[in-house]
């Protein structure tokens, strides 16, 4: 509720979300064809082509920001959504574009109904204990 106090004309507040509807950034797209759904913890990892700035003029500022953030350190879909302050669905579409352009790839998290390797679980336990 941070945008209140704009006087009587303030018909929206922080809770209402951004005034520009988020899906405007995806040009109205809510999905990206046949591609599988990107998991919240799928990491977006830059491809070598991502290192060349200004490579592609048709990228939106949001696309560019996703690439830049992932170059700094691979980012999960959830982190990108939070960092760019956009809904997860929007990030999925934008990352989908970057996949098509081969600027990034995404890691595939553990498939559903399959537990990770026992050695990894052991590593997790030890890692937690060592925190």
């Amino acid at each position, binding site marked *: 509720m941070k945008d209140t106090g704009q006087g009587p004309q303030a018909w929206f507040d922080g809770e209402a979300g951004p005034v520009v509807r988020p899906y405007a950034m995806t040009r109205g797209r809510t999905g990206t064809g046949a591609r599988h759904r990107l*998991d919240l913890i799928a990491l977006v990892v830059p491809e070598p082509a991502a290192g060349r700035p200004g490579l592609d003029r048709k990228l939106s500022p949001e696309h560019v920001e996703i690439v830049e953030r992932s170059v700094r350190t691979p980012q999960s879909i*959830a982190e990108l959504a939070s960092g760019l302050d956009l809904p997860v669905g929007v990030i999925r579409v934008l990352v989908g574009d970057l996949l098509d352009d081969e600027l990034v790839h995404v890691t595939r998290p553990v498939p559903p109904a399959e537990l990770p390797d026992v050695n990894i679980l052991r590593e997790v336990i030890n890692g937690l204990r060592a925190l």
Partner: protein
Amino acid sequence: MAFGRSSSSGPSDRQGTPSADATAGGAAQAAASGPADPITLKILVAGGFGVGKTTFVGAVSEIRPLRTEEALTEAGRPVDDVSGVERKTTTTVAMDFGRITLREGLALYLFGTPGQDRFWFLWDELAQGALGAVVLADTRRLADSFAAVDFFERRGIPFAVAVNRFDGADRYPEGSVREALDLDPSVPMVECDARDRKSVKEVLVTVVEHAMTMATGAPEHAAT
């Protein structure tokens, strides 16, 4: 147990991922993850509204708990395909999450599940590929945890119950809490202080150990 909304879409609904290679060339690229790609895992933190999920996540996360919004179609996408998505009426649900980097290339994400019952259908997505779950419980409102226990039981997701010690809340013997929650004897139950990092770490270790037992040992958890 006011539950049942999400039961229409089981985890098996979204098995179609291998087809990514068969689609467009760009998508095939997506599947070709290099060997050095980091591994990410997730643990869900569930429980009723106000039981301390955000505090719990914040106690161990190396980042300030982040908040992301998921746009949702109402009442449970039954299957994850694109048909019908075009005409979605969205609500957004805020999810809190945190991250723990265990080593270079291995990160654990914690997701606080939305507390309100009307967002149950989101859990299916969150539960996909989850390593395990914590059900946070408040002994003053144990009934708030029923739905979460039920959810993870049905899906065979390893979970532990962590009773959050609230100041001023009465302590009950473990047996009576177990009984009230109708817990399977194999499900670990621990007390915790969601504000305390060490305590939260112990809860997480308990969950992962339980997950390991379920992965390696005999299936002590009979399928329902």
